[in-house]
């Protein structure tokens, strides 16, 4: 693994993602409470926390699905706090959803093709895509990268749950992602599928950083090099996986007795 200094100089000085005092209110409920966090380019971080800790709300604030009530979000130095979601995506931000949001009536390839089209020009093209288009080729490669070539032409509604989770990841890898938010990608997967997921995540190019929300500590600690612990909408602790695992407060709150 390259040193922190090397990676910083390679990607410039700006953080991939920087949150300053980000809060999100739903009525009287404070879902995010003054969250400040920064993630370097290429850094891979896990976000842990119990249900309702604000992890998915954090993702929704970053992608603009539900913009923050206050605070500033910077993406590679650019203030994106009030950008519409599609503008953030076009700048290289990606996300997956906890409950797959896919297009069930379209084929696997068409789903991935749409994702590729969304971050390239020609979104309004009235021409049909051809098999030898560059964009269709990259969609085909992407389907292969997430091990779905065998079901490429199948309608997404007919896929197994695990296959849908893999497709969810393929959509996030379309185009030139610089930073990805994975929302519980391993949830509901069989052990074999989890291994496949870990392999897919580990084989991502080094310059792509991500934040992963994951309850499965085996997965989270194998694919992340730093950990943020959330509780009641706040960042409770940050550190390396080893530090977080050995932290007593964290153990009491989340890991219970001796799980890690």
């Amino acid at each position, binding site marked *: 693994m390259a040193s922190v200094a090397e990676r910083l100089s390679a990607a410039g000085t700006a953080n991939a993602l920087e949150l300053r005092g980000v809060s999100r209110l739903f009525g009287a409920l404070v879902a995010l409470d003054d969250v400040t966090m920064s993630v370097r380019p290429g850094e891979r971080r896990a976000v842990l926390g119990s249900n309702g800790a604000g992890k998915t709300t954090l993702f929704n604030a970053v*992608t*603009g*699905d539900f913009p923050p009530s206050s605070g500033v979000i910077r993406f590679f130095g650019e203030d994106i706090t009030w950008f*519409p*979601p*599609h503008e953030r*995506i*076009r700048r290289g931000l990606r*996300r997956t*959803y906890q409950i797959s*949001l*896919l*297009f*069930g*009536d*379209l*084929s696997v*390839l*068409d789903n991935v*093709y*749409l*994702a590729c*089209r*969304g*971050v390239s020009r*020609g*979104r*309004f*093209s*009235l*021409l*049909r*895509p*051809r*098999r030898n288009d560059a964009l269709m080729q990259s969609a085909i490669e992407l389907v292969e990268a997430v091990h779905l070539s065998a079901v490429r*032409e199948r*309608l997404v509604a007919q896929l197994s749950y695990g296959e849908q989770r893999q497709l969810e990841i393929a*959509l996030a890898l*379309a*185009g030139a992602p610089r930073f990805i938010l994975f929302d519980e990608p391993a949830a509901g997967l069989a052990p074999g599928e989890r291994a496949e997921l870990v392999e897919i995540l580990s084989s991502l190019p080094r310059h792509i950083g991500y934040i992963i929300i994951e309850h499965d500590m085996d997965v989270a600690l194998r694919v992340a090099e730093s950990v943020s612990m959330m509780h009641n909408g706040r960042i409770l602790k940050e550190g390396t996986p080893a530090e977080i695992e050995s932290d007593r407060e964290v153990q009491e709150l989340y890991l219970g007795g001796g799980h890690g």
Partner: protein
Amino acid sequence: MAATTNTLNPDADRAAPSAAQSLPDWLNRIHPAVWLLALFLLFVPAFTNDFIQLQVFGWAFVLGMIALSLMFLAGYGGMVSLVQMTVAGCAGYMYAIFGHSAFMEVSLGWPWWATIPIALIIAVLFGTISGALAVRTEGIYTIMITLAIASAFFYFTRQNYTIFNGFSGFNAVRPPPLFGVDWKQATPFYYLSLFFATLSFLAVLYVSRSSFGLALQGVRDNARRMEALGFNVTAHRIAAYSFAALIAAVAGILLTWLNGQISPGTAGIGPVIDILIIAVVGGLRHPIGPFIGALIYVVLRTFALDALVAVGIAGERFQLLIGLGFLLIVLFSPDGVLGLWSRWRARLRKRRSEL
């Protein structure tokens, strides 16, 4: 019609990736039933009179096109727009206002090559602006806001005399005598409307599998996810209104030629609702649906009166028969004639596999 299943199935298109390069292969994929239908439509004037060509087929093609523009928005975009008939009416009005009519105090008398493009552009603009107002609403609110725009257009044209000539509108609006043909005659108009109906049908069929069409269906199924893939969902929806408006506008000019006039009643509340009925009765799942719906509608409208008189009921009750016909279709098949057709095929296939 059998092509419906062929194109409804996305795998079918993928099955022949080289289709675009080799023409024979591309031709092979067309179902024989489509050839038969095309042949039939081409030779209709050979065995029908002027009345059938103009009052049945001419009307069915034109109303089918307007319903097709509704089907495009509703079927692929999930947006039920009641403004499509109004867009058609707008195009017809613009053609009459910029071109020739019996009311030359208002009509500007410009040549056809200027009038037709201007009418299309203004109508598409009108459809796009209506779309821009409607796209931020969903479901029943989209229906309400587009109905409101349609009503506003109807009352405005009826009360405005300086531009729209109020209640009477414009009479004696004729198609230009291009190539020395009087396009208002039954057979020429039959082929003219057949040409544009086929063109718009094929255009919708093609665009439904284009990048724009795929994305539109994505927006219909999951707008939030489309935003998260980098699509500007609002812009995409508005663009769909523009595309649909172009089809409706072309149909609107044809409609004005067919009627020989344009008046507020052309795009009144009744016709606006009729277009919705035509699209729903035909089916919103495939672009052939609106044309089937239009044919049923026109046949019922044309012959209901005679049928009633024949069985000894007062002729003015013909609306009742039309209503009952639609009620029956929608009752037995909420997704229109197309749904009836696909269920019948599924049952046939099942029976065959049991044998």
